[in-house]
Every structure is written in structure tokens, then in C-alpha cells.
């Protein structure tokens, strides 16, 4: 069925006399062999071969030369059309180059088609990615038959101690098979060997190429040397090849230290990657992993059982590795590509219109050519060569625009745009631009062809070229163009309007914390130097004290992560007075560790009770501050929950609620606040959580937060000179960065919609003023006969507005149709928000009114005598 349709579509390329037999041949072959429909694609190159048989290089060059000459004779027309096309094609090229690099190109690792992200997902808990625990990893490692290698990793940061200042390095903790999975091995030294990722093994490390050159001067004798990393003396065993930095921007790889006898079961903190064994598929791995997950659950009934798996919807999620990093961007990028596709269509409509006008002007020339024996085919070829030549010129210009545009795009892009360094103009981008140019050239070039080439043009030769009868078809073509432009522009305006409203909704979200006048930075304490709660607690108090001593600093505090900065760190909790029944999953609660005065420093309002104090770190004290959402979830009927107890599900140690805070947007701006629990950073005594060592610092200051950076660095140095200060930025910046992906999309959609509006307006104006100029004579006659200017004005405006109205209706329906695609990017506004639709439609209508009013007024001021004399 589809192949028959395909063959017929393609057959338009086949020269007329051969067409029928050509279709029969393909139909016959395809019908004789069922199930070979994929072979039908060859019909296209076949048809193209037949079409181009007999085309000679000479003839084509002559055509192109003639086209260039023709275009050069009309520099204004050519420039206008060329620039319009350059904008449309350039925008597409720019976005495509990003899509190509980020989404389409394979990852730059050997045989990367076999690289998989091997993790879980738990839709029941609203967790898109659920990583592995050590015990899970060991279970899978022994079980996988469909993977040739499997590894887990965790990104981390390490303080590298060199002469002089300490340096903080992006590091990854990996298992031994990591480099096998990636298919990339050290250029110097060796991989990790079996057993090196187990507890008690000698501490080793592999350096990234950049780090090796920067910090070790590219010295080959670095192999075997020991280096202080987070207070641990590690022996360097290898150096990776240049350019390898997976995951993220890793520059240092450290083997895990899994306690094989007693691996952690419940701490799901390691992402998994795998390489498919030959002949295996993603689906096979997925199925195998499902079985392994159940056998793992059966082996660890205390931590996981089938009921919990079911409740959480926990399931293996095996997908190409690149999908793990680009999932968030994927939708936004495809939408952007679609958007600029619309912009190009509008640009084509504009140029088609210019060509229609030009064709009309050249009617006499055409008629003459026909009279001299030019066939219809010659004329079609002439027209199409001209439009494709112009489009290729526009495409070349567009390529330059795209090159500049991509640079701007990257500057605007969310800071952690994956694979940003791979974006550029390469072969496939060039091919894309060429195809887009040729296709758009054919699209707008065909309009005048349909309007004219088949016409009997003898009439045009006879009178002054003002063919009033043949105009109907051209008029219809032009009207179609206006309607299409208005509709497309409205779709883009509605889309960008919806995004803009989401953005403003996000900006107005009550985050639950204060953003102004706050500086933050990070610091991480090496476990070797800070082995216990006492040393961490001393650091905590010491730093806080020194920071608060800085003139201008009101309060300072520490926490494991600030809002909108970190990923989820959640555990199932239960209220001590009504534990979760056996086998069910407790409420997933985000856990944070915070110092005294954290809530003041962050501007988080306490609703009840108190914040944590240094007394809460004393032995035997187990205090917790919880968020309003958690209080409501555990004790919905209590006026005050102070003194209530909660604990980790299945644990016996309960913590006492000493305070309740307002809800805070912790993970994303656009989320419903999830329940939170805040514990002390370094509680002492028995059976308490071990101290937190990866810390964020926040300082509330009088004004100009960034001016406190050096004083804060001094304070940190005074407490421990070996700790680097990492990523100092204001809390306002944290929020801005968290919203970067949305603002990025908003800005780009806004630009696209702006261009669409501009081109659409120019299009309407062009068509209406052209209609007016064609009717000058008629209007003159009518006005000479006494028709008042107002009537003429109304009539011309009415004509423009009728087309606009049709375009608006089509556009509204279209916007409604495509809004579903946008829905997942929206926040606080419905994809079918009537307000947005109404306002953009009215706005576009007004612009169209203006665009037709200007030429209409000119028409109404026509001097009848002039008009009649004009011919």
C-alpha cells in the first residue's frame, strides 16, 4: 500500500513518456515479492537517474549562468529574497548543528553503538533514574550474559595536593571494568586490574590527559609516583588519551573500594554502564536484568521485595548511553528544530510571493519566449534553476549566519549542555543545509510555475500585460501564501507565548528561600583528615565562626547542598507512632544535613519550633527539622508536630522533630515541593549518621555578595589552608542557572517567533500593497465616478483582513494541535491556555491590520486623473 503510494510520488520525477511503464515495472517487482517494501526506496535514485539522463554539464552551467544573470539584473529583489532565505536556512542550520552533535552523532568512543546506560527507573516514585548499590552491582556483574562488560561509577570531586595551592579536580569513582566498557584505555601505564576496586586494595589512580599536562608537566615518569588526593596517598598507574573525560568533565579516575564481604545494599548511588556482547540487543539486556532484579530482591528481602518493586514501579531501564545525558534536552531541541522549520516555511512563502510578483512582471518576456518556441519544460527548468540558484546563495549566506548563531547559542545555552564541544559545522550539517536550500528553492520556485507555465500567454502579448482575467489563479496562490504565513506565524507566537508565560510563572514561584544578598561556595573535607564527627564538627564551627566574623556578614551556615543545586538524596521515612506496614514503601523524603543558623542564612521561614543548634550535635541527641509538607504527610491532623518522632523505614533509631519550616523548591523550580528532613551535619554519639563531608556554605551579607569572596577564602584558609574554595556564586545565580534550560528555550522560541512575525508582516504588507498597485487603475476609475475614499479604504483593508482572519483560524487550530508537544516544557500554564491564544491572535491581527492599512490608505488617496493616466 505504502510502496504503491511512494512509487507514485516519486514518479513525478520520471519523464512523462516513460512514467507509466516505470510505475508498472516497480509495482510489478514489488508485487511479485511481498515483504520487500524496504527495497522500494531505490525508486527515488532510479527516477532521478531517468530525470537527469541527457543533462549535460554544459547545459546546466548555461542555465545557472542565465539564472545568475537574471537575478543580478534585479539586485533589490535578489537581495531581499536572498536575505529572507538566509535567515530561514541559517536558523535551521544552526539548530540542526546542535541537534546533530548532541542527539544524532554517536558518542566519540569505539563501537559506541554498543554502549548502554544500564540503570533502573521507578515511575511509581517519580524517579526517572534509579542507580545501583554496591550489592546490586555485584549481583548484576555476576549475572549479566548479554553484556560483555558492566561497570558502575559516581562523579565526585577530589582535592589534589600539589606544591602551593590545593586544586579541586573533577574525579570519578569507578569499578575495574569501567575502561573496558568505554573501550578507551590509558595511553600511558595501565587500566585498573582485577581486585583493585575492592576494599583493602592499594590506592591507585588514573590521570586525565589535561590534568597530566597541566599539573605534572606531561612527565612520563609520573607513572608509579604517589600523589596526595583528599589526604590519601595514591599511586598513579595510568594516563588516559587526550579528549577522554567521561563521565562529565572527569580528569581523574579512582577505583571504588567495595567491601565484597559486606557491600552496601540500600544506598543506590552508582550509575551503571555496559557494553553489549556481540549479537545481543538492548531488549535482551533489559529482559535479563529484570530477572536479575527479582533474584536480587529475593536475596535481600529486608531491603527490597517484590511488593516494593511493584509499588515503586521499579524496572530496569536499558538505553543507549547518550540518552542518559541528553534526555532532558531532547524534547526542547526537537521542538526548536520544528520551530525554525516553521520559520523557514514562512520565509519560503515570502520568497514565493516575491517570485509570483516577479513572474507577473515578466509575463511579456515569458510570452515572447513561448512564442519563440520555448517549451513548457524549458520554462519550468528555467524557473526552477533560478529559484534553486537563489536558494543555494541564500543557503551559503545562511551558513555564515548559522556559524555566528551557533556561537551565540552556546553562550546562551544551559551551562552544562552535554557534548557542547562537539557542536560545529561539519559534513552532515553542510549536507543538511544543501538539501534544505534545494528543497526550499523547489518549494517557492514551484509557485510561479503552477501559476504561469501552463497558461496560454498569448493574451499577455496582446495588451499591456495587465491580464485581468488570468489573475484569478495567481490571486489564489498569493492568498494561500498569506493565509499560510499568518497561520504559521500564529503557531509560533502561541508557542513562544506559552513558553514566556511558563517562564514568568517560574520566576514568580515562591521558592521558599531568599535569593538576594547571599553568597555560596563549596568545600569538601578529605575523609583522611577529617575522620570523625568531632573533627568535622570542629571544622563546621570554626568556619562558621570565622565567616560570621567578617564585617558585613550577618550569618553564615553550612549544608550538604543548597536548594536547586543538587540532585535528589531521598530515603523512605516513617512516623514512629504509625510505622509503614511490612513490605510497603515509606514516604520518600529528601534528606539534608545543615548547620546551626542555616534557615536564617538561607531565608527559610521557621513555622514552628526552632532550627538546629550546636546542642543537636551533642552525644545522644537526635533532632530533626522537617518541612511543612512532611509534617502534613505524617501527621495531617496535628496542630503542632513538635516532639513527634520519625525514623528511616525499618530502622529503630528515631529522631525528634524540633522545628517545622516552610516548603522549599529543592530540586527544580517547577516542582511541587517534596517533603524534606534536615539533620545535623556532624552529630556525635553512637548510632547516628556519619558526618557529612561534602559541604555547601551560604552567607547572608549586607550587599554585593561577590565582594565577599576573597574574605571568605581567607576565612577558609585560616581554618584549613589545604582546602580549595569551589564555585563561589550568589544564591541568585544558583536560581538563574537552575532556570537556564527554560530561559534558553524561551529566548530561542522568542527569537524564532519574532522573525516569524516580521516575515509574516512583510508578507501581508507585500501582498496587499501589490494588490493595491495592480488595482490603481480600477480604483482611480471608481473614485472618478464618485466612490468615496473611505469605501475604497475599507474594501482594501477588508481584503487583507479576510485573508488574515482565515490564517488566524487555521493558525489557532494548528497551535492547538501542536501544543501537546510543548506541554511537557510548560509550567503554570495550560498548553491550551485561552488567554495566550486570544492575546497572540489579536496581536497578530492588529499587526496585519496595520500592514494592510498602510497600502489601503495609499489607495484611498489615489488621484483619479493620475491613475487613469498611468497606463
Amino acid at each position: 500500500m505504502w510502496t504503491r503510494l511512494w512509487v507514485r510520488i516519486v514518479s513525478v520525477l520520471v519523464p512523462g513518456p516513460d512514467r507509466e511503464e516505470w510505475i508498472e515495472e516497480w509495482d510489478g517487482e514489488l508485487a511479485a515479492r511481498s515483504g520487500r517494501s524496504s527495497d522500494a526506496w531505490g525508486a527515488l535514485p532510479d527516477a532521478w537517474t531517468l530525470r537527469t539522463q541527457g543533462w549535460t554539464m554544459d547545459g546546466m552551467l548555461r542555465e545557472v549562468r542565465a539564472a545568475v544573470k537574471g537575478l543580478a539584473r534585479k539586485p533589490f529583489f535578489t537581495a531581499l529574497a536572498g536575505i529572507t532565505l538566509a535567515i530561514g536556512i541559517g536558523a535551521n542550520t544552526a539548530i540542526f548543528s546542535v541537534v546533530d552533535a548532541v542527539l544524532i552523532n554517536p558518542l566519540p568512543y569505539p563501537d559506541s553503538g554498543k554502549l548502554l546506560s544500564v540503570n533502573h527507573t521507578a515511575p511509581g516514585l517519580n524517579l526517572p533514574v534509579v542507580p545501583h548499590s554496591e550489592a546490586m552491582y555485584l549481583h548484576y556483574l555476576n549475572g549479566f550474559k548479554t553484556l560483555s562488560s558492566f561497570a558502575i561509577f559516581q562523579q565526585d570531586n577530589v582535592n589534589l595536593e600539589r606544591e602551593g595551592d590545593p586544586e579541586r579536580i573533577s574525579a570519578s569513582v569507578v569499578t575495574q571494568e569501567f575502561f573496558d566498557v568505554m573501550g578507551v584505555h590509558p595511553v600511558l601505564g595501565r587500566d585498573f586490574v582485577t581486585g583493585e576496586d575492592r576494599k583493602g586494595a592499594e590506592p591507585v589512580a588514573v590521570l586525565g590527559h589535561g590534568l597530566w599536562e597541566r599539573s605534572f608537566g606531561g612527565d612520563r615518569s609520573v607513572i608509579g609516583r604517589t600523589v596526595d588526593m583528599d589526604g590519601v596517598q595514591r599511586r598513579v598507574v595510568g594516563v588516559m588519551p587526550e579528549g577522554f573525560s567521561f563521565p562529565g568533565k572527569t580528569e581523574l579516575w579512582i577505583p571504588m573500594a567495595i567491601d565484597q564481604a559486606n557491600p552496601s545494599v540500600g544506598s543506590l548511588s552508582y550509575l551503571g554502564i555496559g557494553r553489549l556482547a556481540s549479537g545481543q540487543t538492548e531488549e535482551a539486556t533489559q529482559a535479563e536484568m529484570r530477572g536479575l532484579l527479582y533474584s536480587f530482591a529475593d536475596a535481600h528481602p529486608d531491603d527490597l521485595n517484590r511488593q516494593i518493586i511493584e509499588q515503586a514501579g521499579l524496572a530496569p531501564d536499558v538505553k543507549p548511553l547518550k540518552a542518559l545525558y541528553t534526555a532532558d534536552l531532547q524534547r526542547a531541541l526537537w521542538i526548536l528544530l520544528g520551530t525554525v522549520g516553521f520559520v523557514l516555511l514562512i520565509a519560503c512563502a515570502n520568497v514565493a510571493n516575491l517570485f509570483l510578483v516577479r513572474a507577473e512582471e515578466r509575463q511579456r518576456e515569458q510570452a515572447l519566449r513561448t512564442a519563440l518556441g520555448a517549451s513548457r519544460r524549458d520554462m519550468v527548468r528555467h524557473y526552477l534553476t533560478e529559484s534553486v540558484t537563489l536558494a543555494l546563495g541564500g543557503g551559503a549566506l545562511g551558513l555564515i549566519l548559522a556559524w555566528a548563531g551557533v556561537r551565540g547559542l552556546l553562550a546562551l545555552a544551559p551551562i552544562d549542555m552535554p557534548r557542547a564541544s562537539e557542536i560545529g559545522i561539519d559534513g552532515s550539517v553542510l549536507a543538511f543545509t544543501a538539501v534544505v536550500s534545494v528543497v526550499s528553492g523547489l518549494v517557492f520556485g514551484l509557485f510561479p510555475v503552477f501559476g504561469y507555465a501552463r497558461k496560454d500567454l498569448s493574451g499577455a502579448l496582446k495588451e499591456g500585460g495587465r491580464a485581468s482575467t488570468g489573475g484569478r489563479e495567481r490571486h489564489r496562490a498569493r492568498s494561500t501564501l498569506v493565509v499560510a504565513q499568518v497561520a504559521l506565524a500564529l503557531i509560533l507566537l502561541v508557542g513562544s507565548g506559552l513558553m514566556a508565560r511558563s517562564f514568568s510563572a517560574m520566576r514568580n514561584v515562591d521558592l521558599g528561600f531568599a535569593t538576594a544578598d547571599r553568597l555560596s561556595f563549596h568545600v569538601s573535607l578529605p575523609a583522611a583528615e577529617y575522620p570523625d564527627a568531632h573533627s568535622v564538627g570542629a571544622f563546621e564551627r570554626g568556619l562558621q565562626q570565622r565567616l560570621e566574623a567578617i564585617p558585613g556578614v550577618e550569618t553564615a551556615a553550612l549544608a550538604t547542598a543548597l536548594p536547586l543545586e543538587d540532585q535528589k538524596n531521598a530515603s523512605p521515612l516513617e512516623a514512629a507512632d504509625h510505622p509503614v506496614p511490612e513490605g510497603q514503601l515509606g514516604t520518600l523524603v529528601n534528606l539534608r544535613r545543615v548547620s546551626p543558623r542555616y534557615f536564617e542564612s538561607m531565608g527559610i521561614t521557621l513555622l514552628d519550633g526552632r532550627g538546629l543548634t550546636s546542642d543537636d550535635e551533642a552525644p545522644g541527641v537526635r533532632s530533626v527539622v522537617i518541612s511543612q509538607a512532611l509534617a502534613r504527610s505524617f501527621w495531617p491532623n496535628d496542630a503542632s508536630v513538635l516532639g513527634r518522632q520519625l525514623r528511616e523505614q525499618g530502622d529503630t533509631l528515631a529522631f525528634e522533630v524540633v522545628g517545622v519550616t516552610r516548603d522549599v523548591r529543592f530540586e527544580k523550580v517547577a516542582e511541587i515541593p517534596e517533603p524534606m528532613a534536615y539533620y545535623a551535619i556532624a552529630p556525635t554519639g553512637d548510632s547516628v549518621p556519619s558526618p557529612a563531608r561534602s559541604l555547601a556554605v551560604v552567607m547572608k551579607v549586607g550587599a554585593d555578595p561577590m565582594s565577599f569572596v576573597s574574605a571568605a577564602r581567607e576565612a577558609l584558609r585560616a581554618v584549613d589552608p589545604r582546602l580549595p574554595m569551589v564555585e563561589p556564586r550568589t544564591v541568585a545565580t544558583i536560581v538563574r542557572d537552575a532556570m537556564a534550560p527554560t530561559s534558553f528555550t524561551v529566548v530561542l522560541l522568542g527569537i524564532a517567533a519574532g522573525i516569524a512575525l516580521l516575515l509574516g508582516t512583510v508578507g501581508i504588507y507585500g501582498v496587499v500593497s501589490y494588490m493595491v498597485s495592480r488595482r490603481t487603475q480600477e480604483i482611480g476609475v471608481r473614485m472618478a465616478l464618485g466612490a468615496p475614499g473611505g469605501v475604497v479604504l475599507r474594501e482594501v483593508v477588508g481584503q487583507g483582513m479576510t485573508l488574515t482572519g482565515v490564517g488566524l483560524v487555521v493558525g489557532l487550530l494548528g497551535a492547538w494541535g501542536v501544543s501537546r508537544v510543548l506541554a511537557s516544557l510548560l509550567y503554570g500554564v495550560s498548553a491550551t491556555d485561552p488567554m495566550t491564544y486570544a492575546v497572540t491572535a489579536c496581536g497578530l491581527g492588529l499587526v496585519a491590520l496595520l500592514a494592510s492599512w498602510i497600502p489601503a490608505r495609499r489607495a484611498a488617496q489615489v488621484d483619479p486623473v493620475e491613475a487613469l493616466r498611468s497606463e
Partner: protein
Amino acid sequence: MASVRMTQVTALILRAVASGRRYGFDVMDACDLPSGTVYPALRRLERAGVLRSGWEDVDEARSEGRPRRRTYALTEAGRDALREADAKLQEIRRLLGDFPPATAGEA
């Protein structure tokens, strides 16, 4: 009569037709080449006068309830070209030398 540039593809196709593959899709299968390669080559060979096309028996097609298929056969000039094609294939075999034969195609 236009001459044909003898490539591996044209050589394979000529050999396939010479050994009795009449239909385009049979040639594709024999040469293990995609339709987008074989058909344009068939057109060029026909235009160059090396191949001549006809139609399969209309009754046969009708009995199977489908349109006719086009058939291809060597022309007189095609027989000359075939010698050239065989030489080309021989040369390829020689170049491959010690390589173990992969899918040998028809030839």
C-alpha cells in the same frame, strides 16, 4: 553507442544478467546490492546499449494478479562488455588475493 565505465557494480550486474537474472530484483539479490544502486546502473547500461529491456509474459503476471515486470537481457554489445566485466571481476579476485571469500555473490 555509448561506452560504459566498467566498475565493480556494473561488472557484477552484467555477470548477474548474463547468468540468467532477468528481473531487477533478482539482479539485486544476486549481487547483494541495494535497489538504489542497481536500478540507476541498469538504466545507464540500457541507455549505453549494453542491456535491452523487455516485459515478462503478460499472462504470467495476470495469473498472479499483479503488474508486469520488466526483463533485462544482454545485447550484442553487452556480450563484448561482459568480457570486460569478467576481466574486472578477475582483477578484483586477484586483488583480494589471500582474503578468504566473503559472500561471493553470484560471480
